[in-house]
């Protein structure tokens, strides 16, 4: 500890203290950028003669652009390659198709509106102001979704005999031990620049409260971990703390401690009542523009005036001429689509590499987790399934839909190589190690490999830092009247907010051009 300055030391305390304390302080100090309600877009009405717009892709970005532009008099047409509206905003219910390449699935959940699975975005934090704005404007009811639940588990097959441990117990013990270490450092005043007596007192109080230490600054267990017994009809008996070395050795801290520290995962989170695709339905209710499904774009050609988009529909090759084009086709697929963009622009599109996520949804015949005192939230495990999510809706009803696996990036490939049946089996076996008899409760299941979904072949694109420097701004800017949009053209890919932000950016850019032209400056 000798080499740690006082300033750094306090920084470390903050880091160990978790984001919530810092977050609240920052909120109070008004330091959080890019939050608060989104200003309504005040777009200039389309000039007489109605400007036309071709929107490629009926996901969140495309729908947002159609919604905003048709309100100010543009003539919009949405071209969608797949069989459905919504893009990666996908809620699966009875009979829905999962259009995986080579392994088409049909969702076999019960025909019951409560039995649904958000296969794409499933969480909305309140600071995603554009998402909040559109949910409100489209009258999409939201509800709280538990993301972190201290009654849920952290689990590691290699540690503590493979027994799952309640997050409450793990977090309490980890903080207790860390606080005790700090307390001992204060006793020795072991810093390169000694703390003043006043600071020592404050820090002692902080650490004691943070870790629930005793009078002597020692950690002897805490009720925060949940009682070993009693608590209501008799005094609660404090649990014996886990051995600190075992706790460190367990690697639980990789999953158990930090999962709620990400700002986007900070409690409380929300979800759309009845399924995340109610956002999509909200747009569809409020959009009059035609949406052409099963329409794969064949070529995009910039003209001196406007853009020609060729697409196939019902066995015919069609041409759509528009003044502007907003394109949310995954950039990694653009190389396969004839176009006359500049080389730099195409190079930029190719530099954005596809990410990959994988999810499994399981219909469970009986909500066994509620008998374990778990209502919503996430269990983390070192197994390939990574996580189990317990639903926040339908509490105490008979059945429920769990998230049975959530794999990220390269982890997803492992599941992609399996048949849908093998995936469900794998998820069941993994769940058995956490919940007794888990697999026996599984009635139905669907798996969604985003890297194998028709017309997508990936999700959550990212650039290398070097490519980002060279290309990001280039492809965010329009090429002629053609704008690339979608969560891929944002610094928040894989979130709906990224798609909303990208749409907003493109719309404001267009508006600026239109206004400049109207005043003769263009």
């Amino acid at each position, binding site marked *: 500890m000798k080499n740690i300055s006082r300033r750094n030391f306090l920084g470390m305390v903050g880091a160990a203290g978790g984001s919530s304390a810092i977050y609240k302080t920052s909120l109070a100090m008004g330091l959080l950028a890019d939050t608060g309600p989104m200003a309504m877009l005040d777009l200039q009405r389309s000039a007489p003669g109605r400007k036309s717009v071709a929107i490629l892709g009926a996901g969140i970005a495309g729908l947002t652009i159609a919604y905003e532009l048709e309100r100010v008099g543009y003539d919009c047409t949405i071209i969608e390659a797949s069989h459905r509206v919504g893009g990666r905003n996908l809620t699966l219910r009875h009979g829905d198709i999962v259009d995986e*390449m080579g392994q088409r699935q049909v969702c076999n959940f019960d025909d019951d509106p409560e039995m649904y699975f958000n296969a794409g975005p499933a969480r909305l934090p309140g600071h995603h102001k554009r998402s909040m704005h559109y949910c409100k404007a489209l009258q999409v009811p939201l509800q709280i979704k538990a993301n972190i639940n201290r009654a849920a588990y952290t689990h590691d097959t290699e540690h503590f005999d493979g027994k799952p441990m309640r997050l409450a117990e793990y977090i309490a013990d980890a903080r207790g031990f860390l606080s005790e270490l700090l307390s001992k450092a204060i006793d020795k005043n072991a810093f390169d620049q000694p703390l003043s007596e006043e600071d020592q007192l404050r820090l002692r109080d902080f650490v004691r409260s943070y870790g629930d230490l005793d009078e002597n600054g020692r950690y002897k267990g805490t009720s925060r971990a949940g009682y070993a017994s009693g608590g209501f009809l008799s005094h609660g008996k404090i649990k014996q703390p886990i051995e600190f070395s075992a706790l460190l050795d367990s690697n639980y801290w990789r999953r158990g401690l930090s999962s709620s520290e990400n700002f986007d995962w900070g409690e409380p989170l929300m979800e759309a009542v009845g399924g995340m695709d109610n956002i999509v339905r909200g747009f569809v209710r409020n959009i009059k523009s035609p949406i052409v499904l099963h329409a794969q774009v064949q070529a995009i050609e910039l003209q001196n005036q406007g853009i020609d988009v060729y697409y196939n529909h019902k066995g015919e090759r069609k041409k759509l001429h528009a003044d502007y084009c907003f394109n949310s086709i995954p950039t990694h697929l653009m*190389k396969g689509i004839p176009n006359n963009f500049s080389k730099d622009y195409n190079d930029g599109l190719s530099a954005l590499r596809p990410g990959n996520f994988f999810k499994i949804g399981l219909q469970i015949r009986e909500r066994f987790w509620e008998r374990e005192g778990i209502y919503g939230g996430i269990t983390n495990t070192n197994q390939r399934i990574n996580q189990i999510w317990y639903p926040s809706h339908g509490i105490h009803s008979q059945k429920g839909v769990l998230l049975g696996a959530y794999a990220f990036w390269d982890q997803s490939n492992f599941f992609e190589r399996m048949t849908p049946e093998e995936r469900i089996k794998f998820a069941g076996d993994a769940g058995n190690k956490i919940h007794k008899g888990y697999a026996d409760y599984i009635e139905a299941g669907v798996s969604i490999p985003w890297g194998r979904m028709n017309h997508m072949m*990936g999700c959550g694109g990212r650039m290398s830092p070097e490519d980002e420097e060279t290309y990001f701004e280039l492809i965010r800017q329009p090429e002629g009247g053609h704008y690339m949009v979608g969560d891929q053209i944002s610094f928040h890919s894989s979130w709906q907010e990224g798609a909303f932000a990208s749409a907003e950016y493109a719309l404001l850019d267009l508006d600026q051009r239109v206004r400049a032209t109207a005043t003769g400056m263009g």
Partner: protein
Amino acid sequence: MRNATRFRIIFALIVFAGSQWASAEDVAVIPPDELVYCTVCHGIQMRGNQNILAPRLSEMADWYVELQLNAFKNGWRGTHEADLPGMEMRPMAAALSASQITAAAQFVNATRSPLPEKTIDGDIAAGKRNYVSCAVCHGENGEGSPVLHAPALTGLDDWYLITQLRNYRDGIRGSNPADNYGVQMRATVQILGDDQAMLDVVRYITTLHSD
């Protein structure tokens, strides 16, 4: 009547501004819905998409497409753990019935697209010398030989050619005894020797489709 008539072939006069659009007459084959999948990865008109390692297949001989779709379906290709793109292809082929495979092959054969860009370098003269052994089956001009079950080599992406040569060399392709022609090719590839010789021969092959 040939099944190929199932596809609507539209001769559209599309003059594109960019140089890659040099051909004024663009032949656009419209695939039936179940074959749109092919174009998601391999690109419109099977023009290829190196971003996701899906090679250009436009105009490929239907007998060879059929042979390779069956190779994937049988697990001769796309099962080796080092062949990630092959593993991505395999479930698609596995899902196709025999008649769908025939239809897919005819669709692929009917597609047209600009010739691929050059992406790798090599010594053309050295490659020409190395090509002598290739020519025995694949023909002087890389035109291929259905009788010998040797596909045409023209019109293929150079990055795909070198990947496949390396795959044969390393036993990632052509290792299944049931894959007779693959096994033959694997044996022949060893003649080429080192990686540079392979790059050279691929560079030479790309000159064969310049006209």
